[in-house]
């Protein structure tokens, strides 16, 4: 009798616990509690992803300027006011194709193979493209963003830059900061502008800041030099910041010799453990749980746990074929000569030579126009002992860098940044230390190069802290704000947009 009672009580207790666990799991995972199947409750919020969390926890690790206040970090800019005409057609084009459908292409590039290939891909769906013609038929920049639309990159202003409207004639109390970059530059300029204006207002400086974000994806330093020359320089920037242009940073064939038959970024014969798979046993277990997981949140949770889909799935660096990173005898790894690097013809020095050529062009424009050029060091998130998951793991270990080890990637990036620093020192331009000051946290980066929103906010904060002393000194010396260009630069032929038929381009 006692045994029967025990079994009964035990069974009831087990059922009660399972019910309580199921209810708890449903509430936590955002399902309706009382519905028989698993149905998501639209009011529930996914708390596990918090864009700002890693940033704010890391704020303290960043040196604070004497006149900055950490609470400003919590103050974020409002989105710029949308253009009067929401340009639904632009949204439609983007939705039908991709952000490139709204690019304004350099007219001299319409014969390019890549553009023609792109247009062929959408043959019959894209009737026309937009073009512009740069002075002297320069092949750079190879495109602009369409003005006054909400594109895949947010709202653009009348010049196709991301951000708010700026006055053509620069007001005397405005300090303008131009931003040049590629896909690694997105939202940080807007935050930078906001915090600079907070500082200016709280410290009663009497000035205002306008940050002109002319960065655009898939561009290089030569594009950036042209953007500076044709777009930003006429607007009278006091400073210009560059960041990125690292699309070729993984091309280090002149430094890392690969065994024969092996190609960088193509781990054909090498099996990388997929971070989403955890062996046969877990697969079989999760399959067993599958039927119950259709109606039970607890079972679904357990299935995901067993399959390794929940929680920390950060993996250590996988084993890779041995390679050696060796610098040529005439290239000092610790103290590189930028002029030697700029003359490199190997096409395997992380494409630094192209970057430096672009920087030299920017430098010439900056010198001529009295602009302070600030070159940012570049961050590739990889270091010996790093644990990574998801896209970061794949990018670092498969897509681009394979078979370079994390330690080699770190060494290459450090060399890359030393070269940039040496260039800035030799040309008398400024440097913004991003690689040195950004925390080493995988949750800040999507793929090792591109920052997630958390990383962008921190990037903006790092730039803000380094800009403040420089601006303060320049303000005190009367160097900024400098007067703007009074010419009617906004009506220059460069800004004129033409429509060109796709059929005509494709010769049909």
């Amino acid at each position, binding site marked *: 009798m006692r045994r029967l009672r025990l079994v009964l009580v035990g069974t009831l207790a087990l059922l009660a616990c*399972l019910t309580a666990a199921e209810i708890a799991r449903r509430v936590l995972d955002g399902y309706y509690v009382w519905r028989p199947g698993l149905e998501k*409750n639209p009011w529930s*919020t996914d*708390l596990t992803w918090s864009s700002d969390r890693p940033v704010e926890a890391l*704020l*303290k690790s960043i040196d604070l300027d004497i006149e900055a206040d*950490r609470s400003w970090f919590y*103050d974020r800019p409002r989105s710029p006011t949308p253009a009067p005409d929401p340009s639904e057609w632009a949204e439609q084009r983007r939705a039908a194709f991709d952000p490139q459908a709204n690019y304004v292409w350099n007219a001299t590039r319409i014969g390019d193979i890549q553009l023609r290939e792109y247009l062929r891909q959408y043959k019959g769906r894209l009737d026309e493209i937009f073009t512009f013609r740069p002075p002297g038929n320069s092949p750079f920049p190879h495109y602009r963003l369409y003005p006054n639309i909400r594109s895949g990159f947010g709202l653009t202003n009348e010049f196709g830059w991301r951000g708010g409207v700026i006055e053509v004639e620069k007001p005397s109390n405005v300090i303008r900061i131009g931003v040049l970059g590629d896909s690694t530059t997105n939202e940080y300029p807007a935050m930078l502008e906001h915090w600079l204006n907070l500082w200016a207002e709280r410290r009663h400086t009497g000035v205002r800041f306008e940050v002109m974000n002319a960065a655009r994806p898939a561009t290089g330093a030569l594009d950036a030099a042209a953007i500076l020359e044709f777009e930003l320089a006429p607007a009278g920037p006091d400073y210009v910041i560059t960041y990125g242009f690292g699309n070729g940073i993984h091309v280090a064939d002149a430094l890392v010799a690969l065994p024969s038959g092996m190609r960088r970024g193509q781990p054909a014969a090498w099996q990388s453990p997929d971070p989403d798979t955890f062996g046969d046993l877990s697969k079989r277990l999760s399959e067993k749980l599958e039927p119950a997981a259709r109606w039970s949140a607890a079972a679904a949770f357990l299935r995901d746990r067993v399959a390794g889909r929940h929680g920390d799935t950060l993996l250590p660096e996988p084993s890779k074929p041995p390679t050696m990173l060796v610098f040529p005898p005439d290239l000092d790894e610790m103290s590189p000569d930028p002029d030697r690097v700029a003359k490199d013809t190997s096409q395997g020095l992380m494409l630094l030579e192209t970057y430096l050529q672009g920087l030299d062009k920017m430098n010439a424009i900056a010198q001529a126009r009295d602009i302070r050029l600030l070159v940012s060091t570049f961050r590739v998130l990889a270091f010996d002992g790093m644990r990574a998951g998801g896209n970061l793991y794949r990018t670092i270990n498969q897509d681009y860098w394979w078979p370079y080890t994390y330690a080699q990637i770190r060494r290459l990036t450090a060399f890359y940044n030393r070269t940039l620093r040496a260039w800035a020192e030799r040309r008398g331009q400024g440097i913004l230390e991003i690689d040195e000051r950004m925390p080493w946290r995988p949750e800040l980066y999507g793929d090792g190069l591109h920052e997630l929103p958390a990383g962008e906010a921190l990037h903006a904060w790092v730039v803000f802290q380094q800009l403040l002393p420089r601006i303060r000194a320049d303000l005190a010396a009367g160097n900024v704000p400098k007067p703007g260009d009074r010419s009617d630069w906004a009506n220059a032929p460069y800004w004129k947009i033409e429509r060109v038929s796709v059929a005509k381009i494709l010769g049909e």
Partner: protein
Amino acid sequence: MSFTTPAFLVLFAATCLLYFNLRRGGQNVVVLAAGLIFYGWWDWRFLFLIFATTGADYVCAILIQESTSERRRTVFLAVVLAINLGTLGLFKYLDFFAQSASDLIRYFGGTPNLVLLHVVLPLGISFYTFHALSYAIDVYRRRTEAERNYLIYLSYVMFFPLLVAGPIERAWHLIPQFKVDRHVTAGKVWSGLLLCAAGFVKKIVIADNVAVMANYGFDRASATGALHLLAIYAFAIQIYCDFSAYSDIARGSARILGFDVFQNFELPYLTTNPRDFWRAWHISLSSWFRDYVYIPLGGNRGSRAQTLRNLAITMLLCGLWHGAAWIFVLWGAFHGVMFAVYDVWSRSRVGQWVSARRGALAHTMKCLVFFQFVCLGWLLFRADSPSQAMHMLRSIAFNFSPDVTTGYLALRLALFAVPLLLVQIYQRRYGMAPWDHWRVESKVMALCAATLFITLVGAPNRTQFIYFQF
């Protein structure tokens, strides 16, 4: 090594396996070896720091005991204090003070040229340093004998359940337990297992799940006041469950090995004033500060003003012990102010009238009101900066705006808060370890239920124990 990792479970199982098959001497060696592995798992190099400081403490304590002159005794005590506080200061506070001095110089227009060391904070340094300090001071006060066997002294400092996050033991209580045979009974093992299970549930099911809610609210500057308030409540639950879980697992695993360790928490959120709160919250630390700071300062033996001054100094140091940051000092100061305000309040007519109200309803109301003050303290403790704390307070006062999302979050919080509260009320009524009197079948069922909840409701991502950083 953390209690919530599989590595700890393996280590503890292996320790038990060896421990229960050995005599006392061998058991002590096994416990010491487990302590070395437990700590060395994190960074073995810092073991040498512990060897160095414990070696010095061991020698100095013997010298203190053997010295006939009071002056010599005081000198040796000063040496122990200098070594331990110096080590703590070097690793934990030097950069903080250097940075603060640098900020101050910059504020007055100077150009600071101070170098920061950026040294890694050794895990649990605040805890094992306080173990060592209490030992030396107790020997000096002739409250305990100096230990002649270095291995026993080292075992006391490196007792793995307490090594990195307490409870902070006293030599007079723990060292004698290494010298006698431990009688491990089935009752003790059950009690220890259930304590550990309670700890794991508190940490993995409650603290880690609630941490997500706290982080969500604290990380959103633009959130409404309602969400910020929920985040503060969530953090209050998180820090209690996180830290008391560690203490439970520490006490539970020590009890399985036959050791009796101080209780560290006694239902702190069911208290109604700061005095009772600090008698129930991190008891081993508050009693440490009482014995080695507050009473030597004069305690409550002087005037009211002197008593309050002593309390303020003690609470400031208590805040600073928690972390090298002004926000912790502010948190300590806040509790010091609470003591002072409560002192004035309890002597006022209204205060006396309120104190005289008895009964469940009155007690509940008093608990609820006092809990808000405790939460105000937690806001300071958790915020990244005083300005963030102010920002959240402002949003609670002027932009409360509850909405459906916050309602849903409140439901999530209640999911953990309500059962926790019910268990606490049960403990208040039947004692801190009511399961000790249960029948074996009930204990087995409780363990099964704990395992089930940990598996099905446990947070997928383990967070580090909060007090590891101290």
